[in-house]
Structures are given as C-alpha cells and as structure tokens.
C-alpha cells in the first residue's frame, strides 16, 4: 500500500539546516495497523506529514497504492488527500460551529457528492462509531472520546485507502483511549490500512507492527502480537 524509499527531509532554520529524516525505507502492506513510535524530535510527525501530503519530501520516493506521489502542487495534494487519506488528529480538529454530522460530511462535500448522498453516508459512518444520536450536536456538546469518534467517522467517510492518526489518544484519559483504540482496531479488522503516530507503549502494543524512529532513522521495525484494546 505504501512504499517509501530513501526518504530525506530537512528544514532550514535560519542559516542552519535541520536534517529530520535521514533515509527512511519503509513499506506498509494493505490491512496493517502500524504504530510509529519515537520521542519528540525523532521525526515521526514529519514522516506522518509527508505520508499525509501535508509536507513535501526533499529526496526519495513515495508511492501510495501504486500511485507515485510526486510533483505535488497544492491543488493536486488536496485532491490526493481527499481521495486517498483520512486524518485523525490529537486535538480532534473538528470545526466548532458545525454539527457532528456536518463535520463528517465535509470531506464528501469536497469530493463533490450531492447533499442527500453526503448526509446519508455521513449518518452511516456516525452510526458505525456509535454516535448516530449525536448527529445534530455541536463538538462543544461532546466529550473528548465522542469528538475523536466523530473525527474518525469523518476520516472514514471519504473511504480513504489509508488512515493516518497523529497521537489519536494523546488528549484522552486511559479508559477513553482504550475505547478509541478498540474502534481503530475494529476498522483495521475490516481491512483498512492504518498508521498511528504515538509515544505510548500501551497504544503501540495494540497495533500489529511497531516502527521505532530515532534521530531520523528507523531503529527497529517489528511485527507485534496485537493486544485487543478492550
């Protein structure tokens, strides 16, 4: 599903250049649930941003589902993101003046679906995460776990090839974290490829593979016997 070869990325900080990713080689098969671990500054978020086409790579190659991701301009990146990727963020990133349902319909709106189809699809995904009754509620009326579930529904609604989650449980207590991870595992079980950036060992252990980054290189990449979240 994902093929990365010799990926380099550095940031210019004034006159200094900060080499963040120093030659990453990394393949993900379809249906894997991968945890990317590392301390802060290890480059794990940068890797996720490049995978999410929110950031550009300096050198190397990136292939997603057989499509080479290169020569990205903003419009092309936006279309790829919309078509291939679903995002889940630590801080949920729901639009606060839109209801749960409207938030879920947003990627479908950018896909150009008709209103009726959008709402039907969104409602189905909200139902999948168990929040059908909360469809007309604003994010401010939802708990952290509920918000993250809405965000997951939103990420899934556009039927992405890969789900990218950046510290999805970082803002949640351990009980809610487990519930959210259970949901992610359930989605993974249905065949979706998922990448999770985390620094929590517990969370990583709930994944089928753990990749450890340190100082911009992969230190360890091993299969993991997935622990069920609940």
């Amino acid at each position, binding site marked *: 599903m994902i093929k990365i070869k010799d990926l380099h990325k550095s940031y210019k900080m004034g006159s200094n250049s900060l080499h963040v990713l120093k030659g990453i080689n990394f393949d993900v098969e379809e249906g894997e649930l991968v945890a990317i671990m590392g301390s802060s500054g290890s480059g794990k978020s940068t890797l996720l941003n490049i995978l999410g086409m929110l950031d550009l790579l300096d050198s190397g190659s990136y292939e997603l589902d057989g499509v080479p991701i290169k020569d990205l301009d*903003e419009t092309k990146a*936006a279309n790829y993101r919309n078509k291939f990727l679903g995002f889940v963020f630590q801080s949920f990133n729901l639009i606060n003046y839109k209801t749960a349902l409207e938030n879920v319909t947003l990627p479908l709106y950018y896909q150009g679906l008709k*209103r009726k189809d959008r709402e039907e699809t969104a409602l189905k995904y909200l139902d999948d995460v168990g929040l059908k009754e909360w469809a007309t509620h604003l994010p401010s009326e939802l708990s952290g776990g509920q918000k993250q579930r809405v965000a997951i529904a939103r990420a899934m609604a556009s039927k992405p090839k890969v789900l990218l989650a950046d510290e999805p449980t970082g803002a949640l207590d351990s009980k809610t974290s487990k519930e959210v991870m259970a949901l992610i595992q359930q989605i993974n079980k249905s065949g979706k490829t998922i990448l999770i950036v985390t620094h929590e060992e517990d969370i990583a252990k709930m994944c089928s593979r753990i990749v450890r980054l340190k100082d911009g290189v992969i230190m360890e990449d091993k299969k993991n016997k997935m622990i069920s979240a609940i």
Partner: protein
Amino acid sequence: MKRLFDKDTWQEIFGSIKKNRTRTIITMIGVLWGIFIYITLAGSSKGLDNGFERAFQSIASNSIFVWAQYTSLPYAGYKAERGIQLKLSDVDVLKKRVQGIKFIAPRNVAGVFGSAGGSIVRGTKTGTYSIYGEYPEYIKIATSKIYDGGRFINESDIKYERKVCVIGERTQLELFEEDEDPIGKFISINKMNFRVVGVHKFVQGGGFGDDGDIYIPFATFKKIFNTGENVNFFMIAADENVNGVRVEKEIKATLKEIHKIHPDDERAIAGFNLGEVFRKTMNFANGLTFLSLVVGITTILAGVIGIGNILLISVKERTKEIGIRRALGATPSEVRSQIILESVFLTTLAGVIGIILGSFVLYGINAATIDMTDFPYTNPTVPIPYVLGALGFMIILGTLIGIIPAQRAVSIKPIDALREE
C-alpha cells in the same frame, strides 16, 4: 462559476457568516451606511434639481428681461446721467436685427418701481394692485396659467383698446365672493369699468410680480396712464437652441445704438437673463449631484475596505478551520472562492439593505415636502441605472477587497494551520 450557483457553496458561506453574527452585522453596517448616504444624498440633490426646475417652469427658461436706466457715459454730444426711455418702435428694430428672438413682449406697469398702482373698486370692496399693460406674447413667455373659462389679452383687445382685464387669484379672492364666477363681471380701475376676461394662477418665477397683478391690454394702458409710445421693459424669449447670453448681448447693443448710448455704457440698458440664472442654478444642482456621488462612493469605499479588513481578521481567526478543510481535501481555489464569495455576499446584502433604507428616507422626505410649494424640492428620486451602478460598483469592490483575505487564506500551509492552537 458553477460554484456560484451551487446551493452547497452558499450553505458553507452562511455557515461561516452565521458563526460570527455580531461581527458580520457590524461590518455590514459600514457598507450599508455608505450606500444609504449615497442614495439619500443623490435622491435629495435630485429633489432639489426637480424643485429648481419646477420653480423656473413658470417662465420660459431662456427668457430675458431688459429695461432702461440712466447713462453712465457721455456719448454723441449727450451728457452722462441721461434718462433713457424704451419705445414701442424698438420692438421692430430688435426683431429685425437680432437673430434668435422668439417673442418680444413690451410691458408697462403701474404699481412697481415706486409708481402708484391702480385703485380698484368693486361694489364695497376696494384695493390697490399693480396694473400691467400687456401684449398677447407675454403669456407665451411667462407660462402663467389662465384658469379654465377665462382667456388672456388678445390681438383684438389691443386693436380696439378694449377695457378688459385678467386678474390674479388673490384679486379674485379679495374682490369677489367665494362662489362667484368673476368672468364677465366688471371691476373699476381708476374709475373706469373693466370686464374681467380671465384669472391667472401665479407661479413664483424670477423677477417681480405677484398673485394680485392685473393685466390689461397694452393699448388701453397707454391711454389710461398716458404713456404714449413708452415701454417700461421688454420681456424676450430666445429660441430654444440659441445661446441666451449672446442674444442678451446683441439686444443690449442694438438698444444702445437706437438710443444713442455709448457702447461701453454698462448701466443705461439693464438686463436680467433668466436663462442664465436658470443655467447657473442647474449647474449648482448638478454640482450637488456630483458631490453626493463623490461622498457616496468614498463612503462605500470605506465600508468595503472595512469588510476586507474584517475578513482578514476572520481568516486569521479561522486559520485552523482552513487548515482542517485543506487537510480534508479543499483545493486552494475552493478556499479562495469561498472567502471572495463571503465578501461579495456581505457587500451586496449590505448594499441592498442600504438601498432599501435610503429609499424609505427619500419617501419620508418626499411625504414631508410634497405640500411645500415654496420650498424648491420635488420628487426626490435616484435613477435606477445609478442604483444598479452603485450595486455593481460594490460587487466589484467586494470581489477586489475579498481577494486580499482570500489570498491570505490560500497562503496558509495546512500543516502550519493544523499546528496552530
């Protein structure tokens, strides 16, 4: 363009506008005020314009008064300070020599310029009124109306020196009973009986005259007041398409020649060019219209800049939201057009409300001034093309000003926007 007619686009726009209701309303007031000022000012100056036109309608707008005074320069053996008397024979000379004269009405008057008026008696009622000796041409120049059932002085009145008269509205009120028809009745002017043939409705124009004036045939006047061939003043109408100032000049030059006055004597022959006054007044009104246009446009401009400013702040505040949208697949052009459409929508909505409010104010002014005939203010309106022009101008401005925040929104990198807390 497709996006413009997409219901969902508007849904998105309403969503984000609703989110900041107070701020949106305050912003809109800026533009609303601009167009409101423009409509009110433009309508008011149009009302003034119409009012002036109405004030001048009683007199042909290219009419000229000419009268004689004392010379200021010696000439051809005559000393200065010589009194000049206009003569009836001047009419033919003027008609022959000056191009562009439509009508000349020689007029004599008793009761203005310090002379005694006519003392009028009817039964027990008496009064003193100004008496004018008139030719039929007068009514063609001064467009005073004669009430139904009556007539003005005609050629045969002059020819037979008839003792007929046209009285004013006030004269009628003061000499006749309320329900009495004055036509055909007799009044005594300086102890001579005159038959009333008409009543004129006086409309304030330029110069003198009032609603009590009595008009009698020129020839009759001559006999009663013993004025011979003398004429007090000429009232002249120039042809519609000629330069009134030129005609006035030539008339004066001709009269100076006839009466042996120094060509440079500015005092002996005096004139009052109503057309010129009319033109100047209309220029003043046009100036006001222009001023209202400038004030209106600059106020609209200020308002629209306010919208741009608010949208810039709004974009800044919504950095994260824009980042989320971008991450979910919004293309730069989608983000851009949303911001621009918000700007255009706010501007247009504010504009339409401003136009409606302005119209109400004009309606109110109209209702308040409709009965004030002395006040030069009639029918304040703004022509539809001006209104549409203003609206179009605002839409263009709204688009242009929207480009700035839209560009700002597009320049935000989704990754930076998402990082922002």
